[in-house]
């Protein structure tokens, strides 16, 4: 369970998150929607521990443990996963190499045994097949020369292999055509689990047709201004954000 | 480390030493200027003309080119000024669609009578260098000396010692000079002569100016030009600069210095079109003193015959968060030699520097040579710097494609060359001036096609 209580955060002296509170229960899929500049991506960075952000007040607890005290890699080992809006390219490092380094680093941090090479290969191959990731992509340098859709698929593949307890999908639908969107959504849905929760950040309602949320939160000016069920997303699609933005102001 | 004994003085150097002793007392400026000149002269005499053993002159031997030192041009007489005024319009027609304010120099000397001084808007002050040196305050003398820029360069030291022609242009803070200022340089004498000019352009905070330097020389005589332009650009000011040096006759040497310093959030965009004419050395020393400033140095070198054109740029990032761009295109025909030396220096602490330089050359003839030396010297870690250099020919496939569509080979070549060099002129912001430069380049290419 993820609990955010009265979070205030800023970057370069600029306040972005203003007293945000949010709870995502085990097994829940929560969606966050909001206009550009409402602080959605910042929230994902603050949860996952990107440097440069200053938390001035509030706390973020994952299963009761204070995330804010941990380094990004420690949070990852704790089960926090962020599917990036713009996944990074790492030239010269093959996808396979990267996956193995990450999986074993996390296992080691949790005191678990590292995967043997054949074991690891088997898992990756199976995961890749499910997501329609071709084998040759695994031998190429991570994300280098990948299309937008391939990069997003790679994010979901990483998520499936790292088996997080709390996954954030930051605008995972951006830049995807409808076929790619379906593949990615199927991949996410396959990972639904009573012990795993999701925070789906999106600008449009479209993604939520494929990844059906339990709850929908509207974010504006750094806080949650409205919470409802999945029908709230449809309402937003029809009426836009204007009403809610007004409410916050 | 190893003290090399100074090479013996050449006769040209000896002549210059004698000239200096003779001219010293009559050169413009008070005690402070005299001291500046003396120090520069001593520095020049200690080093002599640069040879290829001087790393910054790796591909250009000025000592060899300066086999003799020509007599220094004196200020033109009243008759000469009248004569130049009469042919100004034909020799240097106005740029199409550019309503410029003209500043006319004859043999390097500012001639108010031929210049559009009465049209100068408020906030724009223009003086001759001689006036400025004689009456200017300490700040002006220091500005002219451009401390820290081009230090150790013997050719610049020589200019400092002899500087006499030129002008000082001041744009007051906040003034946006709508009309481009066009500096036209003419040569009056048919006798071989040397010209040492230095000019200063100062932009106050937030000021904006477009400055065109156009040189014309039609008398067929040999010249030794050693001229410097100093640009001081204050906070938030913007200077666009286009320089079209004269095509001097073979045997001439032309050293053109540009010394620029930028304060914060300033912008400087400079373009040089070099069309050869003896030995040309274009050297730019630029320094970012304030943060968040941008500078672009671009140019095209169109060279044929035995032209030798050396473009050497030294860009110093001292302040953080600045961006520099260098972009040069060279076309080399016959036995021409092109040189591009670009050096970007990022000082410790100049974090977030973004520097990129490109030099692209096309060789058209077996006798042509292109030398590229794009250097990076980096002492700060959070930077993005890069350079690219290519040397190649016209693309055979493209040529064939154009020919297959019915273009004769020469026309097809000209078309591809035009596309190649025009890309550099795209960096000129002012559209009409850009069109003018592209037309000049087209003229060079057309002449080649006819040849």
């Amino acid at each position, binding site marked *: 369970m993820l609990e955010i209580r009265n979070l205030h955060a800023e970057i370069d002296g600029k306040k972005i998150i203003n007293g945000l509170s949010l709870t995502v229960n085990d097994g829940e899929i929560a969606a966050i929607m909001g206009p550009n500049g409402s602080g959605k991506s910042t929230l994902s960075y603050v949860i996952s521990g990107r440097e440069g952000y200053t938390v001035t007040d509030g706390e973020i607890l994952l299963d009761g443990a204070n995330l804010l005290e941990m380094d990004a890699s420690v949070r990852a080992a704790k089960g926090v996963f962020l599917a990036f809006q713009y996944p990074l390219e790492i*030239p010269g490092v093959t996808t396979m190499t990267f996956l193995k*380094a990450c999986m074993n680093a996390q296992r080691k941090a949790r005191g678990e045994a590292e995967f043997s*090479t054949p074991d690891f290969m088997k898992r990756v191959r199976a995961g890749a097949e499910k997501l329609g990731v071709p084998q040759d992509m695994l031998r190429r340098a991570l994300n280098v020369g990948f299309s937008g859709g391939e990069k997003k698929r790679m994010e979901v593949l990483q998520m499936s292999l790292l088996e997080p307890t709390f996954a954030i999908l930051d605008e995972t639908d951006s830049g995807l055509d409808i076929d790619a969107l379906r593949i990615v959504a199927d991949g996410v849905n396959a990972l639904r689990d009573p012990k795993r929760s999701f925070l789906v950040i999106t600008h449009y309602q479209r993604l939520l047709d494929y990844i059906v949320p339990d709850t929908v939160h509207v974010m504006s000016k750094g806080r949650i201004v409205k919470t409802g069920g999945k029908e709230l997303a449809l309402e937003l699609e029809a009426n836009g954000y204007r009403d809610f933005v007004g409410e916050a102001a | *480390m190893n003290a090399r004994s100074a090479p013996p003085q050449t006769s040209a150097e000896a002549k210059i030493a004698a000239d200096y002793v003779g001219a010293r007392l009559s050169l413009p400026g008070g005690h402070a200027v005299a001291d500046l000149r003396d120090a520069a002269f001593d520095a020049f005499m200690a080093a002599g003309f640069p040879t290829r053993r001087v790393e910054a002159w790796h591909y250009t031997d000025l000592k060899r080119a300066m086999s003799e030192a020509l007599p220094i041009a004196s200020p033109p007489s009243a008759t000469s000024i009248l004569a130049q005024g009469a042919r100004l319009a034909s020799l240097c027609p106005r740029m199409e669609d550019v309503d410029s304010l003209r500043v006319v120099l004859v043999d390097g000397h500012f001639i108010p009578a031929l210049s559009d001084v009465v049209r100068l808007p408020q906030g724009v002050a223009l003086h001759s260098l001689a006036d400025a040196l004689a009456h200017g305050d300490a700040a002006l003398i220091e500005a002219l000396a451009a401390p820290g820029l081009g230090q150790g360069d013997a050719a610049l030291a020589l200019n400092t010692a002899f500087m006499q022609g030129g002008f000082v242009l001041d744009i007051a803070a906040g003034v946006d000079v709508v009309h481009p200022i066009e500096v036209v340089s003419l040569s009056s004498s048919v006798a071989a002569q040397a010209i040492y000019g230095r000019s200063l352009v100062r932009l106050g905070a937030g000021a904006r100016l477009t400055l065109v330097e156009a040189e014309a020389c039609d008398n067929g005589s040999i010249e030794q030009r050693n001229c410097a332009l100093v640009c001081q650009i204050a906070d938030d000011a913007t200077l666009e600069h286009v320089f079209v040096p004269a095509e001097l006759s073979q045997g001439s040497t032309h050293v053109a210095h540009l010394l620029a310093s930028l304060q914060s959030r300033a912008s400087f965009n400079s373009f040089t079109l070099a069309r050869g004419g003896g030995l040309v050395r274009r050297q730019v020393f630029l320094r970012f003193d304030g943060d968040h400033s941008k500078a672009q140095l671009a140019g095209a070198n169109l060279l044929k015959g035995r032209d030798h054109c050396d473009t050497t740029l030294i860009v110093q990032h001292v302040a953080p968060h600045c961006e520099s761009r260098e972009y040069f295109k060279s076309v080399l025909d016959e036995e021409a030699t092109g040189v591009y030396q670009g050096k970007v220096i990022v000082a410790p602490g100049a974090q977030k520097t973004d520097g990129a330089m490109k030099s692209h050359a096309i060789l058209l003839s077996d006798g042509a040579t292109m030398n590229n030396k794009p250097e990076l010297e980096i002492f700060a870690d959070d930077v*993005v710097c890069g350079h690219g250099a*290519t*040397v190649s020919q016209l693309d055979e496939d493209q040529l064939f494609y154009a020919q297959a569509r019915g273009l004769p080979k020469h026309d097809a070549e000209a078309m591809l060359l035009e596309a190649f060099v025009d890309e550099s002129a795209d960096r000129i912001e002012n559209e009409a001036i850009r069109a003018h430069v592209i037309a000049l380049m087209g003229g060079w290419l057309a002449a080649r096609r006819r040849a």
Partner: protein
Amino acid sequence: MAAVQETVDRVKSVDVDAYKYGFFTDIESDKAPKGLSEDTVRFISAKKNEPVWLTEWRLDAYRRWLTMTEPDWARVEYPKIDYQDLYYYSAPKSSPGPKNLDEVDPELLRVYEKLGIPLREQEVLAGVQERRVAVDAVFDSVSVATTFKAELAKAGVIFCPISEAVHSHPELVKKYLGSVVPVTDNYFATLNSAVFSDGSFVYIPPGVRCPMELSTYFRINEQNTGQFERTLIIADKGSYVSYLEGCTAPKRDENQLHAAVVELITHDDAEIKYSTVQNWYPGDSEGKGGIYNFVTKRGDCRGARSKISWTQVETGSAITWKYPSCILRGDESRGEFYSIAISNGRQQVDSGTKMIHLGKNTTSRIISKGISAGRSNNTYRGQVSAHRKATNARNFTNCDSLLIGETCGAHTIPYIEAKNATAVFEHEATTSKISEDQLFYCKQRGLSAEEATALIVNGFVRDVLQQLPMEFAVEAQKLISISLEGSVG
């Protein structure tokens, strides 16, 4: 990735000054008197029982050296070297020359054991290593052992110390010595010509593909002793050889001079692949001690369609001054230079290459990856030049620098000279640091800052690592992380 994990573990296990080959072995040695004079030159020549022509060749070099001045154009700074305060010859007393391994001083064998260099053929054959490598081990001024000589001889390959080749194959040595790097080429090469001690000699006869990798392992042991090795490799028509070079030295407070000369010659259709992992003692983190490495390496693609490929991983030395070059004389010949140069602490690296295109249709390729950390300075200096008659010369250069920390410097000085209208040269260079975004991405996936940096750096140098023979690549990868130890903040 196992290798990444391993490097990180190793980085953690070493102390601040991570050099692991820094031990000194007390072996009684036979030295020339200190200082340099004609007598020193004669002493060395006499020790090696050299023919008169070679003694004269050395003396000529020495006399010319006296008239030369030390070059000062490189971006390196060091106190003046006192050439009279050095020993120019030092040999383990017990081992006057290479011989049967059983006769080699067991103490010496233990040194190589400690360094991980296999000198006992039977151990190699017993499968300690998957690939067999013949080794010439040079200890200070002499070669102490050369393995697999007999087996190589069956293929017609000559692989022996150059001091031995002078006697066994004088016609070859006389013909090729100094033919690529002339006696007066430069200050350090001339010094080497006067006092060179030992090094390897390789001759591959026409049409022979050398049946195993050849390797020379250089070790400086003695104090105040310069090492001046000389390597000469000739690949005759249609032959091929892959040659590896490794080097280490003890940790010492004072600097030691290493001025080597390597000459490669390829005839028609021949190929030499020359790989170096240079791991001389770099000095401590404050810049005390370390090797001054002034090396002249040059290959002459004399024959048509011949090829020379240099691969270097430079992690050691206080000062590196080194430009392995190719003279592309033969038509359609090809030169390659792949380099990883890492500097940390107070190291100064000025390294690069020259590709001189003389023949028709010659091609060259340069991939250089520089990594600077600590308070070091790392300079790439390269020249690509096409002469008038070098029609269709082609070069591609890629030169990237990575900065780790704000107190180091990275510099790029290329000279690109085209004197032929049919030349096509492409040069690209970048300088940057590891991006914060990349680091965060890796950390979000669970990697620590150290692991993330090691991973990204390994990716950065991968193009070059792939050029190394397998076992060297693994070793080099480990070395890279060790060299960057302490640089990740």
